[in-house]
């Protein structure tokens, strides 16, 4: 950790008003996207990446970081007010947030949620700042076998985001990997699966694919269900929490923040897992666990600190190893490459001028989030009520613009639409789309390093098991796959049992 560089980065970020403005815009846009049910932080980042194309890398990335942090925080506003989490990360917050809202304390719940988000986000950002350079140092020792095993580990994480079926998650990932082989082969230069199209020589462009997966697919679902979605009403009173309410929850906030950061740093877990685990831990260690779920501030503080801390945690593997922690960081990883930066250990060797401002920006974003969150909660609450019949066409249009602006190509718009239609059907048939995103990121890394390793070792696959770091990644991947398999199986059994009990009760009635 170079403190001189960090101090310089802070002065660059904080004393340059334009940087400050971009973080502010990012945070505000992120909160709006996060607060609107059906629009996730992933979608927000995907849609707003095109607005950073013309910006210098630092400003563009600061804006995207703002969207990420704002999006995760914003999800709690709709969760508290209308019992519909704006993002999956806010699902745990509504357990106590909505009961508080029913008691007429929605403002207080949003207020304490904002402070907890600030504490969590700042803790996560600070840990990220100090831990990332150390991990990157280890990453610098990696050769092709290590990178290949790392990609396998990252792809193994697909299991954890596979939803109800591991098999379908794996199939979605293979589909994503198949997309990555389109275009010039990185080692031999042979064009593959381009069918003579000039547009496909460079491969399927990341942003249009991303917008198809997360933007169009959601728009199509919204249009399909537009007549069945109920109108939304929301009301917020006093927001600023009392000092005593903050201090009495500080311990929970810090504990959840540290836990959330480390949970977020495990690739594949993400902010939603962090929120539920920290909520569970707060309930377990509370003196009055029976009050959880009835509307207590502690039940809002814990998941909000946890999920916002996970934003910093999720950035650690993305920046240091090039393996995204969750879907949003996968989008951020794509954004870095668009700005000419390749995430991974080399970033810490070659681009310290960008890395340290990212650290500083991430910390500064938390302060802006606190100010914007507390002062603008009423406005954001009003935005939730925006007519979906206006909002959906606007998002549709942003998807078109986003997929066009990358290469000014109508081919990309068409490609994006096709991917959107595929993603729309995939979700209906229980094929998760997030593994495709991870595969798009990790596919080229996996293929190049797998082939390089096999060429170096003359086709001997033991090269992946005889090198300690490589073997460790493969062991970790196996451990994660096995534990996730049993977790998903257990959840399915529990669901089956509760369905049986429910059908039995209905039958008796």
């Amino acid at each position, binding site marked *: 950790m170079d403190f001189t560089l960090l101090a310089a980065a802070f002065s660059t970020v904080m004393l340059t008003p334009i940087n400050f403005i971009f973080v502010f815009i990012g945070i505000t846009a992120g909160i709006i996207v996060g607060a609107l049910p059906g629009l996730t932080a992933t979608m927000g980042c995907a849609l707003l990446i095109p607005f950073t194309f013309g910006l210098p890398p630092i400003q563009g990335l600061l804006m995207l970081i703002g969207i990420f942090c704002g999006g995760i925080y914003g999800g709690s506003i709709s969760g508290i007010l209308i019992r519909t989490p704006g993002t999956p990360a806010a699902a745990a917050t509504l357990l106590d947030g909505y009961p508080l809202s029913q008691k007429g304390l929605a403002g207080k719940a949003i207020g304490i949620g904002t402070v907890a988000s600030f504490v969590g986000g700042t803790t996560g950002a600070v840990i990220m700042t100090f831990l990332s350079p150390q991990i990157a140092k280890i990453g610098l020792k990696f050769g092709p076998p290590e990178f290949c095993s790392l990609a396998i580990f990252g792809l193994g994480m697909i299991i954890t985001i596979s939803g109800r079926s591991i098999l*379908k998650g794996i*199939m979605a990932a293979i589909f994503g990997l198949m997309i990555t082989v389109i275009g010039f082969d990185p080692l031999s230069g*042979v064009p593959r699966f381009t069918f003579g199209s000039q547009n496909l020589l460079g491969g399927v462009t990341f942003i249009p694919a991303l917008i198809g997966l997360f933007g169009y697919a959601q728009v*199509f679902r919204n249009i399909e269900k537009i007549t069945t979605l109920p109108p939304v009403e929301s009301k917020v009173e006093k927001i600023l929490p009392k000092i005593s309410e903050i201090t009495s929850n500080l311990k929970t906030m810090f504990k959840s923040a540290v836990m959330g950061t480390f949970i977020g740093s495990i690739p594949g877990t993400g902010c939603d897992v962090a929120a539920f685990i920290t909520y569970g831990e707060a309930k377990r260690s509370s003196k009055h666990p029976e009050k959880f779920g009835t509307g207590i501030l502690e039940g809002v503080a814990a998941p909000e600190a946890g999920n916002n801390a996970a934003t910093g945690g999720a950035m650690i593997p993305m920046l240091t190893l090039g393996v995204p922690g969750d879907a949003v960081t996968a989008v951020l990883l794509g954004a870095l490459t668009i700005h000419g930066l390749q995430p991974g250990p080399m970033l810490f060797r070659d681009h310290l001028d960008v890395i340290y401002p990212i650290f500083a920006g991430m910390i500064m974003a938390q302060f802006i989030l606190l100010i914007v969150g507390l002062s603008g909660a009423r406005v954001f609450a009003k935005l939730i009520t925006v007519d979906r019949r206006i909002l959906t066409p606007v998002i549709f249009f942003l998807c078109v613009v986003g997929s066009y*602006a990358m290469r*000014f190509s109508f081919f990309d718009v068409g490609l994006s639409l096709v991917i959107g239609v595929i993603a729309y059907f995939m979700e209906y048939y229980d094929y998760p789309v997030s593994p495709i995103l991870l595969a798009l990121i990790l596919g080229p890394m996996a293929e190049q390093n797998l*082939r390089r390793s096999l060429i170096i070792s003359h086709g001997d696959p033991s090269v992946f098991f005889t090198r300690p770091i490589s073997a460790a990644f493969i062991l970790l991947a196996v451990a994660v796959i096995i534990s996730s398999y049993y977790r998903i199986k257990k959840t399915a059994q529990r669901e089956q049992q509760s369905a049986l009990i429910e059908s039995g009760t209905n039958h008796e009635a």
Partner: protein
Amino acid sequence: MKKADIGVGIGLIIISTWIFWYASEYSKATIYYYGPNFFPQFLAIAMCICAIILILNAVRGKSLARSDRIHLKGFIRMVIAIAICIGYLFLMQAIGFAMGTSAFLYVLMMFIGQQGQVKRITSSIAVSLIVWAIFRYFLIIPLPTGMFAFTF
């Protein structure tokens, strides 16, 4: 979801077989043993195995129950919306970005049932002009100008 799983499985086996065969052509292109055909063929085999497991699970009655269904009316609405979007892509090239976008937003809002005429007009014009201005003057990214090259 049994029928869907079997259908998807069979479709994927056919596609995987084709990918395997198509990628084998690339092996002639280089001297490497692990050449450009290696990874696609590896993926084709992996997908084929997964598809067979999917079919077997479906035949053994282990398919997941559907959590949601596509509503026919809604689906038709979605298809028409995509058609409107495709029309918009051509219109944008003919009459320019801002004007084409205003028309697209207005038509789509009307199509999905937005009742307020004033709201439709103001929001569609405002959104298209704001985004056009951001791209043109702030990000300096060129957008289609159509026949009205002087402005929008």
